[in-house]
């Protein structure tokens, strides 16, 4: 039986269907500001009802990409298709997208209900319908009793809800969220992430979110595009991004990882098992079961997540298993996990994380203990980029 990467959140994967028509298509988009290239010949498809994240460090072009979809910036080259229609040159006030701004951008001189009604009034909707829709939105974000308040009479979390209600009120085809939860504290942020997911499922809208918070992207998204310097490094589901990153950049950007640079010493034929390679790295030899295009002599990186490395004070029973022997150099206690940083005789470091599954431990590993780190052949990856 084929194994899957991580939990399956929902049966929704139009990107695997070759006949599926993308809802939004960025086609060879380049955006320059003077000499600075913010987005560099980027192509990306987003499907209807998808919750899609643009993830990357600040200055990677993710916000520019979103602003081009909203119509605040025009691409220097390339075109943007929405449901097959080229929307280049369509001003923002005629686009079927709505945006929730990072600063919320609530109109300070209008009450909460006026803020929510603003977009509906622009469409000349009858008064009665506007009122009904505003009430519906207030109920959705649980702010019914705050309708008459001005934005500066609300707390940060409430403002965020008003901003969300306002951007949803017109039932846009695509909702754009620019770092929507950045200003909230951690607890509230987590709650809101789940609420956003529920909302997106209930309303059946396409959500595009820009964030630099990888946990947020992992939690809410169907797919994530990891961006760097105006290009997309990888587009995949959260589990694929985490368990099968395609490059050192993505592996390092998402979560914690050990990266060991080395050379391919041997490939399949010599080792017997199909898809297995052997990496040599200054006296450390690692066998990996990963279908990789690398050939003998290639410079590659071996990458493995700390939680997939086992730590023990006993030598492994099977001497052929991948192992790393060293001294406990540092311990980070995170509550749910403990992170061990182990240093080998030749000064190389490796990290191992252990879930603290029981409250009481017989023989805890401590500083300066000599330990064995071991991992199976399919726990790590070969990265060529």
């Amino acid at each position, binding site marked *: 039986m084929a194994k899957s990467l991580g939990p399956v959140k929902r049966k929704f994967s139009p990107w695997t269907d070759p006949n599926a028509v993308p809802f939004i298509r960025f086609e060879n988009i380049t955006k320059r500001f003077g000499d600075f290239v913010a987005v560099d010949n980027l192509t990306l498809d987003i499907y209807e009802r998808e919750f899609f994240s643009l993830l990357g460090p600040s200055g990677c072009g993710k916000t520019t990409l979103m602003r081009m979809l*909203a*119509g*605040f910036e025009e691409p220097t080259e390339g075109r943007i298709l929405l449901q097959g229609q080229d929307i280049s040159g369509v*001003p*923002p*006030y*005629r*686009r079927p*997208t*709505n*945006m929730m*701004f*990072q*600063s919320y*951008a*609530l*109109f*300070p*001189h209008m009450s909460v209900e006026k803020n929510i009604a*603003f*977009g509906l009034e*622009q*469409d000349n909707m009858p008064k009665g319908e506007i009122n009904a829709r505003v009430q519906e939105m207030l109920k959705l974000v649980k702010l019914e009793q*705050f309708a008459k*308040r*001005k934005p*500066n*009479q*609300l*707390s*940060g*979390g*409430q403002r965020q809800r008003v901003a969300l209600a*306002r*951007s949803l009120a*017109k039932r846009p085809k695509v909702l754009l969220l620019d770092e929507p939860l950045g200003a909230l504290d951690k607890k509230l942020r987590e709650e809101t992430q789940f609420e956003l997911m529920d909302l997106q499922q209930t309303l059946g809208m396409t959500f595009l979110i820009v964030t630099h918070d990888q946990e947020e992207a992992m939690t809410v998204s169907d797919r994530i595009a990891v961006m760097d310097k105006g290009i997309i490094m990888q587009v995949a589901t959260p589990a694929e991004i985490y368990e099968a990153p395609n490059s050192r950049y993505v592996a390092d950007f998402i979560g914690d990882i050990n990266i060991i640079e080395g050379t391919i010493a041997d490939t399949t034929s010599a080792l017997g098992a199909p898809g297995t390679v052997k990496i040599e790295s200054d006296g450390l030899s690692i066998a990996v079961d990963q279908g990789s295009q690398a050939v003998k002599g290639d410079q590659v990186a071996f990458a493995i997540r700390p939680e997939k490395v086992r730590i023990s004070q006993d030598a492994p029973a099977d001497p052929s298993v991948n192992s790393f022997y060293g001294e406990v150099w540092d311990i980070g206690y995170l509550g749910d996990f403990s992170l061990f940083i182990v240093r080998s005789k030749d000064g190389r470091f490796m990290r191992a994380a252990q879930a603290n599954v029981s409250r009481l431990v017989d023989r805890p590993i401590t500083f300066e203990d000599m330990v064995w780190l071991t991992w199976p052949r399919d726990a790590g990856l070969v990265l060529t980029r």
Partner: protein
Amino acid sequence: MRSPRFDATVLTLGFAFLYIPIIILIVYSFNASRLVTVWGGFSLHWYSAMWSNQGLMDAAWVTARVGVLSATLGTILGTLAALALTRFARFPGRMAFSGMIYAPLVMPEVITGLSLLLLFVAMGVDRGFWTVTIAHTTFTMCYVAIVVQSRLLTFDRSLEEAALDLGCPPVKTFFKITLPLIFPAVIAGWMLAFTLSLDDLVIASFNTGPGATTLPIKIYSQVRLGVTPEINAICTILIGLVTIGVIAASLTTKRTEIKRVRDEHLAARGATT
């Protein structure tokens, strides 16, 4: 050595230097004597004399009209200039334009007045009410531009983007979102422009004509013939108007501040409910 006594002395001297001339002017406006510097008992005589002085009243009326009109025109033009300077970050000649808007501030008034006079003469325009109004619009406009520009620099542009995003076209966005939010600065600019127009002598005297004598010109020409206590009376009224304006402005500011603090409390309580 600094001591409380020293501080108090310095403060008193400073304020005395600023306000004693004004106090003397106010006191002598209630003087019964015809001689400006000799106290002859309390009287409101000069206030009634002022009312019946047709020339002075005409000049006051001209000044008020010029002030309101030029302040309004200057505010509209100045606000537009401020918008252009803050919004269109890159357009050909931006540097020159922003330098040019500040130039009239540092330009000697004599030069501004003279150059406008030459322009009106060259164009063959008869000097009078409208030339003074245009001249005042020209020089008050840059003050307004600076006041409004400083407000626009801290204006969150995402508010306008949000309005556009919600389907509101740009011009409507300006009137529904931008203008209401920068309105205090626009009003402040208008008041500044009005005050500047009210007290301008140099530019007005270059560009005025028959039948358009403003109050400063009138006062100046009367003083040359000898100061009558009527002048003191009208100046006292002007001081009174300015004082009321300043007090009103500071009360409004104070009320806004109190409201802001109350709103913050409300927000803090709202967070827990």
